[in-house]
Every structure is written in C-alpha cells, then in structure tokens.
C-alpha cells in the first residue's frame, strides 16, 4: 500500500483529474513556500489492517487484568449489546452536526429524546445535547451563573472534597471571567450546612453540591443548600447522574437552578474517563444555555420535525459573545445514553439505582465485618461507593489487593474507597475474601 487505503483514485483517474485541473502532479497544487515545506518523513510506518489489529491488541493486552472496584466520578454499568449494535449503525456513527435537518431527522429526534429524558430526571425545563463531561459541564454552569446573576460577586463555592479533576477544570473555566473557586467544609462526606451558610456571602454567585458525593454519600439536605444559595442570590448547581436521579430527590424540587453531572454512566463502558456532560437548567436561562439544543418544529407540510435551534447563542454565529466556545460535543455518547435509558425504562432505571444503594450497603457491611477494616466511614446512605478505613497503611492494602487481582482507590493514609455496581457485583464476594487475606 503506497497511498491512503481510503483514497479511491486509480492511477488513470488521478491522471485524468490532474489533466482537468491543468497540473502535472499533485505537488503542483500545493502553494507552500519552500522554506516551510516538509519532506513527508514522519517516520511512521504504514500497517496492514491485520497487522494493526494484532499490534494494538498486543499492546492493550499489557494492561493488567484487574477487576475494578473504582468509581469517584467514572462509573461502569453494564451496557446491553443492543446499545452497541444500534449506536454503531453507520448512519449514526459517521454523521455529523445536523446542519441540514431535512436529512438528519433521525439523530435530531434521538437527541430531542435525550433532552427530554433529562428534563424528566431533573425536573428542569431545559437540557442541552451534551457537554464533554461532568467537569466541563460544571465549568459552564459557573459561567452561566456569571452571566445570569446580576450580583457583583466573584466567588464560586464547591465542597472541599470535590474531585481534583473537577475543581481544576472549574478553576480553568472561571479564570477568564475573573471568578475564583473557594471551598466549603464537609462533614460525613456531605455538605456541612452550618459551615456552608457561613461561607456563603454577597460575593457568592454559585454554590455547587453533589449527590451522591465523590465519597458515594447521598446528600441529606439538598433543599437546605438550595435555600442558602437562593438567599444569597447565588445560583444553586447540583451535580448528579441519571442513574442516581432515578430515585433521588428531583433537583427541581430542592431548588436546583442547574444540574450538571456525568450522563455517561449510561451508554459508556469503562473508558478511561471519557464522559458525557449532563447540563440541564431552568427555562429562565434559555438564552444563556451553552451548547446545542434540538427543538421541535414543523416542515412545510405541517409535519412535526426537529432542528437545532437557538443557534444565535453559539460560537459559529455569536462568536466572542457566544454562551460557550463548544462546537464538537459528545452527541454520539448522548445517543448511547438515551438508548441505554430507553432499554432500562423507568422500572429498570429505578431497579438499577436501588441496586447501587443495596450493593454498596451489603459490601460495606461485609468489609466492616473484617478485623482491621471499617466501612462505611461516613454516616450516610451510600450510592455505589463508600470509604473504607484501614488499620494497615491504605497503600499497602491496595497493593496487596492488586496482587490478588483487584483495583480500589487509595484516598488517604488509612482510607480506601470501593465502588460496586452491577458491572462488578459478581466479584464482590471475591473482593471480600481478598480483603480478608490482606487486611489483617
């Protein structure tokens, strides 16, 4: 293979085309001054399809085969085969943004349905087509607050336990708006309400809380947080995910103005942190929403049809006054999440969410029964995951578990974190046995 396997030109066709454009060869078509011309030698060897697959499967096989009990923002639920087979249909997989809605009704409707499911789950009126992940959605939410709050504040408040990746992305996003990120104390893995009340002030434009939190704790006083934010004129942003929202309090009912989070808990397998940013908000912020929105309309025959809408918010029209710089987003992942949600239905989602509670509860109990371990450390209801206290140094315990074939988080000198879902529940007993081996 001397050229691109995906450029279909025969030599005769290339010659005819060059003739038609009046060029002797392709090089003649490039208007590149000599001093900046490159000789084409990257030193990258072309592989046959077969060799490529062998090479990369060999490379990836260097990943140790550990059973993961990992969470803290990236979760795996079993994705049914039908989601794969349908989402990989080429009409979905190899399309792009719906600039011509008349021939892209399929994806538009799927995204409209995705938005609608999030509307149901959050109780808020508006959901966009996707942000990149939970962290960037949080960043966008803080900037929304900056746009919609008349208050002159510059403080964005987040829990002290916020995952560093999220805190860092948030700090990056708000830098340009001259906001700053401050933390409020937590207790037992959730907001310390009194301390939060003290922390919120006139300068606060945005209060962020999560449920479940990064430690897997279900926040017991969301309405209280919402009231504190509201009293200060700050936007209350709640972080969650579509599985948790299937049973937890509806965000709208606790006063959330915006909901962000990781919607890739549906539709995505473990994928090294790749995500799908959930973004939903109240209708009053409609003209300030970042990202794409699909709306219903009609065609000239009066038939219902879908189209991207309110694009005047977006960068390709509004440029530096756009509500965000986002363009390429996570639409195909949103499609998969919608498929997964529809596959489960309301009953399947509720069952899955309840399993996240009971599996964590049961596994924590089993671990707590082991001498030298305590779980859960926090006095809260747990969702998917929980913190484990260890008598031994946590890193040593984790290393020993890894030798037994299990991966868990180390989050402190004597603190591990363990996450259990339907994806790894079959190995929970084995994990307990391994804990018994190594914890003593």
């Amino acid at each position, binding site marked *: 293979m001397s050229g*691109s396997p995906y450029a279909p030109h025969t030599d005769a066709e290339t010659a005819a085309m060059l003739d038609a454009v009046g060029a002797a060869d392709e090089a003649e078509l490039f208007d590149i001054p000599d001093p900046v011309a*490159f000789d084409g030698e990257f030193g990258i060897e072309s592989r046959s399809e077969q060799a490529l697959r062998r090479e990369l499967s060999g490379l990836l096989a260097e990943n140790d085969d550990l059973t993961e009990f990992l969470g803290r923002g990236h979760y795996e639920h079993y994705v049914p085969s039908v989601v794969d087979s349908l989402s990989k249909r080429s009409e979905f997989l190899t399309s792009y943004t719906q600039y011509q809605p008349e021939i892209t009704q399929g994806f538009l409707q799927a995204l409209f349905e995705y938005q609608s499911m999030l509307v*149901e789950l959050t109780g808020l009126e508006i959901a966009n087509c996707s942000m990149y992940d939970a962290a960037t959605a949080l960043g966008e939410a803080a900037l929304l607050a900056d746009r919609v709050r008349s208050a002159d504040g510059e403080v964005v408040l987040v829990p002290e336990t916020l995952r560093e990746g999220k805190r860092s992305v948030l700090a990056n996003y708000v830098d340009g708006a001259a906001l700053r990120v401050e933390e409020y104390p937590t207790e037992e893995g959730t907001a310390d309400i009194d301390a939060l009340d003290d922390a919120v002030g006139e300068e606060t434009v945005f209060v962020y809380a999560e449920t479940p939190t990064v430690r897997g704790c279900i926040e017991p006083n969301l309405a209280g947080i919402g009231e504190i934010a509201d009293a200060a004129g700050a936007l209350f942003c709640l972080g969650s995910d579509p599985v948790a929202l299937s049973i937890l309090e509806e965000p709208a009912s606790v006063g959330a103005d915006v909901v962000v989070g990781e919607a890739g808990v549906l539709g995505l397998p473990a994928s090294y942190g790749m995500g799908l940013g959930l973004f939903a908000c109240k209708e009053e912020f409609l003209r300030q929403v970042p990202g794409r929105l699909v709306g219903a309309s009609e065609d000239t025959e009066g038939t219902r049809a879908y189209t991207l809408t309110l694009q005047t918010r977006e960068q390709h029209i509004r440029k530096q006054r756009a509500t965000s710089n986002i363009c390429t987003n996570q639409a195909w992942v949103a499609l998969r999440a919608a498929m997964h949600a529809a596959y489960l239905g309301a009953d399947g989602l509720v069952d899955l969410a309840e399993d996240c509670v009971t599996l964590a509860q049961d596994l924590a109990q089993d671990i707590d029964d082991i001498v030298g371990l305590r779980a859960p450390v926090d006095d809260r209801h747990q969702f998917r995951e929980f913190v484990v206290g260890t008598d031994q140094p946590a890193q040593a315990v984790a290393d020993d578990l890894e030798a037994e074939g299990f991966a868990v988080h180390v989050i402190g000198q004597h603190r591990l974190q363990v996450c259990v879902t339907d994806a790894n529940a079959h190995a929970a007993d084995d994990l307990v046995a391994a804990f018994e081996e190594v914890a003593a």
Partner: protein
Amino acid sequence: ENEPLLTEKRSDTVEPGDALPDDLTRDELTLPNPEEPELARHYTRLSQMNWSIESGPYPLGSCTMKYNPPVTEDVAADPNAAVHPDRSADSIQGTVGLLAGLQDYLGRIGGMDAVTLQPPAGAAGEFTGIAVARAYHRANGEDRSEVLIPSSAHGTNFATAALAGYDVVELPSGEDGRVDMEALEAAVSEDTAALMLTNPNTVGLFERDIEAIADVVHDAGGLLYYDGANLNALLGRARPGDMGFDIMHYNVHKTFATPHGGGGPGAGPVGVTEELEPYLPNPRVAETGSGYELVESEDAIERVHGFQGNWLVLVKAYAYIARLGDSGLADASAKSVLNANYLAGQVDLAVPYGPFHHEFAATAGDAAAADVAKRMLDFGVHPPTTNWPEMVPEAMLTEPTEIESKQSLDDLAAAFDAALGSTAEERHDAPSRTTARRIDQTNAARDPRLSWQALDGE
C-alpha cells in the same frame, strides 16, 4: 413516514422502592419503556432517516468529513481498552503506552515538541492552547489582554479567546483572501497575547506570508496559535511547527477520521514548542526506562477535562495514523487537494479566491446559497457549508476530502449544477424528496419546544 417519539409508544411511571428513606427519594419517575425489539426498530428507523458518510458525499467545508474506517472501531472495542482512569499507570501500561505513542505521532506530524491529549474537542484544544499562552505570559510577568483573530476564522476562535478572558481584535482579510500584513502590523502591540490562525485558511488558501506573520507576532512578544481544522490539507507537505507556530491543536476526528456521529465526540490534542511544554495540563504520559508513567508539571495550567479526555477517540486516531503511515497520510492530503481542485473545475460556480487547497469557497452569485443547498438535497447529496466565511457572498464552502472518487465528484458536480439550474422557486420550495420538507427555523426559535414534555397537548 415519521417515527413516533419513544414516549408516544409506551411509558411507565414507577415509584422508588425502599432502599432509601422517603425523604431522600423522588415521588415517581415516568420514562419510555420500549421492550428490546421495539427499541431496535425505533433506532433502526431513526438511523435510516440520517445522512452519514456511508450514505454519500458529505462535502461540508471546514468539517473534513472523511470515511471512518471500521477497523478503528474494532481496535477500540478491545476489552482491554475498557479501564478506569484511576488505575495505576503501572497496571495499564497498554493504555498509557498507546497514549505515549499517539503523543509522539502527533508531535511528528505537527512539528511540535510536546503534546497533551487531554482536550476532548477542537474548541477545548483552543481553550487549552490559549490558556497555555496565558500561563506563559503570566509566568513572564506580563498581563497581555488581546488575542488577534482574522475575521474569516472559525467562530470557536473568537469564543475561546473570550472564554479565556481576552479581548478579541478582529483582523480584516486582505484583498487576496489572506492575512493583511499591514493590518496585522497595525494591530499587534504589547497587549497581544496571541494570534490565532488557520492555515490553509477557511477559504483554502495557504498563508504564504506565514514566516513574516510569525516574525511580527513574535517580535511583539506574542505567540502564534495554529487552528488544526484544516490540517488535512498539509499532511506531509508542511508542519505548523516549521512555520513558526508555538501552539496548535489537532482535530483528530477530522484529520484522523475518528467517527463523531451527530456532532461528537472528537478530540483536540494540543502541541507546543519545548518552551511551552511546562504549561501543558497535568498529567501527561512520559516514557521511562522501564515503561510509561504519568508525570505532572508544577507550571501546568489547570485541567480541561475531568480525566484524560476522550480515550476511545484517541485509540481510533492512533489506529488511523498507524494504518496510513507516512505515505498514506501524505496521499490523503494530496488527494484531498486534488479532489477540491477537480470538483471546483466541474461546477458552474465562481470561486473568488485561490489557489485553494483542500476546500474552496464558491459563491452562489445571484442565488441564495442556503436555497441552493436545500435543492441539492433533492439530488441525493449533502450540500456544502453555506454563507460562511462571510468574505465570500452567498458562500458555498466545499470540502470533498480525499475519499471521493472521480465518479463521485462528477455526480456531486452534477448535483451542484442541477440545483443552480433550478428556478428560484424550485430552490425555495426544496427539498421535496427528503424525509422532511423544509423545516421552519423561525418558529422553532420563537416558540422553543425542547422536550416531549413541551409538546404536551400537541
């Protein structure tokens, strides 16, 4: 025929059970509940109502819609690729090794010294790059406030600069469609943080003065940023690093053909010169004597993604690059430029600016570009990008990419000409052979119905 909404088929309302106390739970949840066969039919029907690169030509200018080789899907579906981001690097040497390999490939392709793979899209790459510039200037004790952007640039450039807190200084294009050197010199100042440039630019022209441009910006203490949207035109022919760019992003979903169905996911890795490497976001992958590890820099900017970016996209990009290699990559560029030039010669449209490379901005002249595009739908092709860039009146920005055959380009040209040859009324009434007829955009925006809940009672 239309496909009903999922919720118009069957929905269930359920209440949470007793795993949690009532005060922590919602009252009820109502969602569609198709069983699997109906689910399969729903999405199969929807897919058949959607244009894709496997449906036919997709010459959206500036979007580089290339064939997405299924082999890259198979590679990414490897069960060993399904790992959690908090795994120790030691235990996922395959994953971090692949990332190290991709960093290396991208560095070579762009002529850049260091690369981060974290940005999950092109615009995120821009934000990363401009944040790097910001950090660099701050580290030098400078508080530069402006980013220069040619008026023909992608909207993301403007939005990114604003997101990073910069004032945008828009540069008018010269008469030849390229950067106007005089305007540039007039605009550059000690407030200039960076110039963001696309090359070839958005009408397909190579910025021949790139060396002089770089000198002007660098002399003023600014940095030169390369928007990788059009990199497909230059593979193996020129490298941003060699042209004097300090920072660039790669749109791997364009140039390296990773599928981004419906609008994403993409990935926007950022390459920088050695001088700027310390500012790339943490962590990055580095090779050590015994393998690969994740390393952090004290001077790094804050992160642009909660984890390590769009991993599955990066795997596919690596696979695509490795499949093509030097000769395949160079051929992709050569054929993309040949195809654009050939197609431009076959259509009855004026192309004001040239010589262009992988895309050309034709003008529909007296016709409304948007209507011509709608009429093209009736001839079984996807039309080009319309009414952008603004420097070309009734612009039809056309990028066929290297994957179209001569026959396919001839068919595409025939669709252009047939649409242009239609009457204004035919164009205005178009399309008529599509799933939906012309859709009312005005009403969609005036009376936003953004969920099935908003359709209640319709």
